């Protein structure tokens, strides 16, 4: 578990460093994700896969992903000055935009899958 966490932190650190050095417009953790993904696929090709600790740490984090958003969400208590008088309008935009995004994304995915193939949905 700790070994796995160390690996995840290292890959995030690599990601952040690459973004800092190159000025890429991509978040550091996402670059870390791509690096870890590449490392795992490469080692699978070479027939060497000892990723058990990383798999355990990843499983533990992803199983409690929701928890990680709680501290930012509690920030709602400190918002008074921004949303004054705009709460209803913000709520309207937020809900409608979420529903539109859900629908558009789903339609594009299902439509492209029908057009391009890619196997039947299970």
């Amino acid at each position: 578990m700790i070994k796995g966490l160390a690996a995840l932190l290292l890959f995030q650190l690599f990601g952040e460093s690459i973004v800092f050095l190159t000025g890429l417009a991509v978040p550091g953790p996402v670059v870390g994700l791509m690096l870890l993904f590449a490392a795992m696929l490469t080692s699978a090709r070479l027939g060497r896969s000892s990723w058990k600790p990383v798999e355990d740490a990843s499983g533990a984090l992803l199983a409690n992903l929701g928890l990680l958003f709680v501290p930012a969400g509690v920030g709602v208590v400190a918002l008074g000055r921004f949303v004054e008088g705009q709460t209803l309008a913000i709520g309207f935009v937020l809900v409608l935009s979420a529903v539109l995004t859900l629908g558009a994304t789903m339609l594009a995915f299902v439509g492209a899958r029908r057009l391009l193939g890619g196997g039947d949905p299970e």
Partner: protein
Amino acid sequence: MKSPTELWVYLSASPLIWLTLTVCVWVAASELSIRLGRNPLANPVLASILALSAVVWAAGVPYQRYFEGAQFVHFMLGPATVAIAVPLAQRWREVSRLIGPIGAALIVGSVTAVLSVVALGKLVGLSGEVLISFLPKSATAGVAMAVSASLGGDPSLTAVLTVTTGIVGALVVTPFMNLFRIKDFAARGFAAGLTAHGIGTARAYEVSATAGLFAGIAMALNAVATSVVAPAAAWLFLR
């Protein structure tokens, strides 16, 4: 011997109590969600935020002090994003067959997420600062806050809009998809992760492993897409 009041004054000023409360409230909320059969309305993220906000507000503790403790949890958002590489690599064979639908849904979804905010926000007359902070709300919290800051928005406002979007997406996705009889769990998950980032992904994992995997992929890809689409939309429409 000191009094209980002194103990509270001591504890409420220390990061320990806010970290402990955050984790314990989460454990209780997710237990409740499991007991209620993972009903979308019993969303553990929403329940935890409501409970903790009530405590912080009632205790009269400034958010900054709460965050001094809770930041240790918040910090794990980075490693958790990296962690998505694991299921992605494990199931790459299955995912790689769907590159076409993934690409199409990513482009359509990331543009819709940002442009719908521009259009609807102008319609109801949101202030410029709110609108800029609103744009990246479908990207995962860390990324959304960074994008917002780079555009001159307010990261703390963006954090709340992002988390709220995540909760709304997680609440709506299951009834929405059932209404339209969508049985393709890759599509359902992808839409949840793209719209509602990690909170949508957490919800998707509650429903099915396939939905969770595709939600995680969508969350990672949309983090990248939003960091391109949101600045472009700001430059085009909000100058």
